[in-house]
């Protein structure tokens, strides 16, 4: 168990792993009939691979990697629209760096930048606001991307722009929400999931109540988890114990950061600025009801869709996934990345075909990054 030594508290890790093995046995799960737990957050996927948690835990426990990487679930059509916006001569297009390499049908934002579009990677929408103040003659568009963790930041930035009367700042809103895709996965008869490890930082904003339907309507347990490997192990154990005991509850392992009701200021800002779209397209999952947010009428002046006639505002646009790419199957946990015919061939981190290979939170990138080390270990 070479990885355990890297844990902050190897003793505690060993004890948790032993308990996980025991409970997995109690459940009667085996490699052929594993208990399947989905981690929803891409940060958790990354941590599972980094610390080899999927191998330290017994074969009767299978981790299914959920759709929790916002870059990975971005459909190609949205990337195309970003490129179209960025290539307008008056626009300064600002984005989190994560989105730069996601392939569109013709090019990524990185390629568009190389061809001369004014695209700037920023750390925060606050940087985009500042650019708008400094360049009153340009249209600064911020690519609003991410789950509930980043939604408050663009909501508050839009409110700040409104207060200052900044007329050259807008947000291309592609924010998505965590609960609807979980519901979609639970409604999918092909998916068999026994429980969930819930996202920590998303829950810091929304609290734990939005997950109640998972326990109440679907009878599945969920534990909101922190990011330390020990947090994850403890959370997995809590899920397993509920499965063993036939209980379905929402439990909070990350109570030191996640309040039951979330963050009231963030939630109020989201509510003020955004409203749910009737539906939103997810890469690999298709259109999901009420899973995306658009900017409310009262902030229309800051809505890039309205300002430039693009995106959902201009009607649906669907683009087929590239040939031979299995992103959708990987995203829904139906196959492992290595089972994609393009993995490591047509699709590598240097030349990604799908977005799951781009972000460190994507399952394909995680397999790629840590798979090499594993192959070496296996050979040892």
């Amino acid at each position, binding site marked *: 168990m070479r990885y355990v030594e890297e844990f902050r508290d190897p003793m505690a890790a060993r004890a948790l792993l032993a308990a996980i093995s025991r409970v997995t046995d109690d459940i009667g799960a085996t490699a052929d009939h594993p208990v399947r737990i989905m981690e929803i957050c891409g940060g958790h996927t990354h941590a599972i691979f980094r610390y080899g948690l999927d191998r330290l835990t017994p074969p009767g426990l299978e981790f299914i990697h959920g759709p929790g990487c916002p870059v990975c679930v971005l459909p190609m059509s949205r990337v195309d629209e970003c490129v179209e916006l960025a290539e307008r001569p008056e626009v300064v297009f600002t984005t*989190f760096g994560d989105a730069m390499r996601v392939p569109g049908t013709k090019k990524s934002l990185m390629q568009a930048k190389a061809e001369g579009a004014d695209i700037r990677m920023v*750390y925060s929408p606050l940087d985009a606001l500042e650019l708008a103040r400094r360049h009153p003659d340009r249209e600064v568009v911020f690519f609003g991307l991410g789950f509930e963790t980043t939604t408050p930041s663009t909501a508050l930035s839009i409110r700040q722009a409104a207060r200052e009367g900044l007329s050259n700042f807008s947000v291309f809103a592609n924010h998505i929400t965590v609960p609807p895709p979980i519901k979609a996965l639970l409604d999918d008869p092909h998916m068999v999931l026994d429980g969930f490890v819930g996202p920590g930082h998303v829950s810091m904003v929304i609290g734990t109540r939005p997950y109640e339907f998972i326990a109440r309507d679907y009878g599945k347990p969920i534990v909101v988890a922190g990011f330390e490997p020990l947090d994850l192990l403890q959370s997995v154990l809590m899920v397993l114990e509920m499965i063993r005991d036939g209980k379905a509850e929402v439990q909070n392992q990350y109570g030191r950061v996640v309040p039951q009701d979330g963050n009231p200021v963030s939630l109020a800002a989201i509510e003020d600025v955004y409203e749910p779209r009737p539906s939103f397209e997810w890469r690999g999952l298709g259109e999901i009801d009420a899973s995306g947010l658009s900017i409310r009428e009262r902030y229309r002046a800051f809505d890039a869709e309205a300002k430039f006639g693009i995106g959902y505002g201009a009607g649906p646009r669907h683009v087929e996934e590239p040939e031979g790419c299995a992103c959708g199957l990987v995203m829904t946990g139906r196959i492992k990345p290595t089972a994609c015919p393009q993995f490591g061939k047509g699709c590598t981190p240097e030349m990604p075909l799908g977005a799951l290979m781009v972000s460190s939170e994507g399952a394909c990138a995680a397999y790629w990054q840590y798979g090499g080390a594993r192959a070496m270990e296996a050979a040892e």
Partner: protein
Amino acid sequence: MCLGIPGQIVAITDASRDMAMAEISGVRREVNVSCIAEGPLDGLVGAWALIHVGFAMARIDEEEAAATLEALRGLGEAQETLDAMEEGARALAEARP
């Protein structure tokens, strides 16, 4: 982008806009504190918070801050965030192409 990074609030820079200076793993960066403000902003000086894309989202204690930072370092995410902050500063300085 999805994981916050711990930072300590060291000064209030513009109370009218809820802006404060935070020290994040040795780097100073202005952040918005409206989501953690309760009462006068001066009370935040010295506090630790989880910072997401320039917004302080939850107050945490010093011990939690240290543990979270260690977890982020282990994942390489701490460096990624610091790089993104540097990139952001560069974006502001960049002249019109």
